[in-house]
């Protein structure tokens, strides 16, 4: 018997280097996390300070007037704001049912897993096409192909202001379609992942009380996955609002305002891309102001979506 008060087992000592690495990793993570916030803040600050001149000059009138005239040095961004909002919202309206629908198809066992994986991979490949290539395709293939449909809309629904002008080629409507194609992979893959994460237990529970497949999908599975799906839709909306290249190529870059979706228009990002190169003086400030509005728009959409997710999410 050992009666001495000796420790029963010896604790291994960690070396100082090991402790130092632990500590510095913590610091490193902290720096990384903060630098993201810092960069965001810096961008915000720079854009805000760049746009103060224009803000002081036009105030809120900048948002409501549509006259963008660098020659007379008079700027109003309504055309671009209208274009940004209509293209992004309407492209979402097209892409969300398509994307969520394909995600449901991929996650349910309607067809063998091999075919589902193929579909899933094809949709992700869509994201790999450079936007400039998509823009080119939109100009030469898609828009001429869709022209008869746009003509039809104008002929029969022309009394609606949004179809009130004859399609002449580039315009808001083809931009909406190309945006829908571009954001489809984001919506599909994120929706697919969130649907896959719904616990199998929930699905069994629904089937167990005698639910059909449709009831199970719409009343149980989709609500359980909705926060992820909305997250994906938001990312897609962000992309749609900010997408520049393909939109610039197909939207027509016209600053003459028209309610019609068939007429050429502009978006904030297309406006910036087109004019920054040659801009100077108060035009730069006005472009900064437009960029600032774009940031605010995205921020508002984010806040709204987070509120929405909180409202409708099912709590586990």
């Amino acid at each position, binding site marked *: 018997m050992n009666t001495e008060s000796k420790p029963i087992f010896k604790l291994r000592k960690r070396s100082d280097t090991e402790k130092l690495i632990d500590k510095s990793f913590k610091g490193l993570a902290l720096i990384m996390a903060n630098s993201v916030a810092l960069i965001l803040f810096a961008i915000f600050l720079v854009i805000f300070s760049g746009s103060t001149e224009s803000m002081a000059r036009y105030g809120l009138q900048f948002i409501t007037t549509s006259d963008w005239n660098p020659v007379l040095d008079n700027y109003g961004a309504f055309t671009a704001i209208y274009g940004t909002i209509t293209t992004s919202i309407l492209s979402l309206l097209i892409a969300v049912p398509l994307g969520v629908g394909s995600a449901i198809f991929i996650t349910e*066992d309607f067809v063998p*897993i091999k075919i589902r994986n193929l579909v899933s991979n094809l949709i992700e490949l869509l994201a790999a096409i450079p936007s400039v290539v998509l823009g080119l395709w939109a100009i030469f293939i898609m828009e001429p192909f869709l022209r008869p449909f746009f003509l039809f809309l104008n002929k029969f629904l022309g009394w609606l202001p949004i179809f009130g002008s004859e399609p002449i080629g580039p315009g808001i409507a083809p931009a909406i379609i190309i945006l829908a194609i571009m954001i489809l992979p984001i919506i599909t893959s994120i929706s697919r992942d969130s649907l896959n994460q719904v*616990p199998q*237990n*929930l*699905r*069994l*529970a*629904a*089937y*167990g*009380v*005698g*639910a*059909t497949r449709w*009831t199970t999908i719409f*009343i*149980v599975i989709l*609500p*359980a996955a909705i926060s992820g799906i909305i997250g994906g839709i938001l990312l897609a909306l962000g992309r749609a609002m900010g997408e520049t290249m393909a939109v610039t190529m197909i939207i027509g870059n016209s600053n003459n305002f028209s309610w019609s979706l068939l007429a050429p228009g502009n978006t904030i990002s297309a406006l910036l891309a087109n004019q920054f190169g040659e801009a100077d003086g108060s035009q730069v400030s006005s472009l900064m102001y437009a960029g600032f509005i774009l940031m605010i728009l995205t921020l508002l959409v984010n806040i709204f979506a987070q509120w929405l997710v909180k409202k409708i999410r*099912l*709590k*586990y």
Partner: protein
Amino acid sequence: MSYNMNTCISFENVSIKYGGFDAVRNLYLDIPKGKVTALIGPSGCGKSTVLRSINRMNDLIVGCTITGRVLYEGIDLYSPEIDPVEVRRMIGMVFQQPNPFPKSIYENIAFGARINGYTGNMDQLVEESLKKAAVWEECKDKLNESGCSLSGGQQQRLCIARTIATQPDVILMDEPCSALDPISTLKIEETMHELKKEYTIIIVTHNMQQAVRVSDMTAFYNAEAKGGGTGKVGYLVEFNDTEKIFNSPKQQATKDYISGRFG
């Protein structure tokens, strides 16, 4: 085929396969109406598979095939004109893990009833179902809170209430207490004693004391290694009154299992 009025579920030469390998082979079993029947046996002997075949839950597993006939009151549940959704409405199921919907307690009960076309007084049905499942006292003041806010045992009784609310004829229970503490287990067993007055109950359990406590009839399954393969095939060893199975089993394998000598 002779159809016995007292038989609820009848297996006639049923074999179930997952992909290539056999899970259950040549099962003949008549489960009586209005009683609690326990399925016991070592892990991997196909008890749960057999249970799930009764309400066609195996349909949801890719590659699962069944041969032979499963009769419910003389009707072949696997004949082409049978809709599995209707089968599951008549034959409810309580799962191993409590799985309430992430909705309110009220909605958990109402959901199943509503999709089954229940048009009566929903408040009343919710109250009755929760009372039958012996969870009303704990839930009555928080019907609008999430079903997931309850404790594990309460969740499981909520799931039982949810099953009752669809007004089934048979209730299947797949190890309903294996994720619960002894007190919750006892409460659920008490609930089962109440329920067997109205429903036929079939329960899979690993707990032999539980089988003794709750069941009238017990079926003992065993699994044997298939020649050459790694998989085991389940088969029925003995089916009799629970009392006889546990006091005077006819088969040596049953005797070994209930005395804890293997499995």
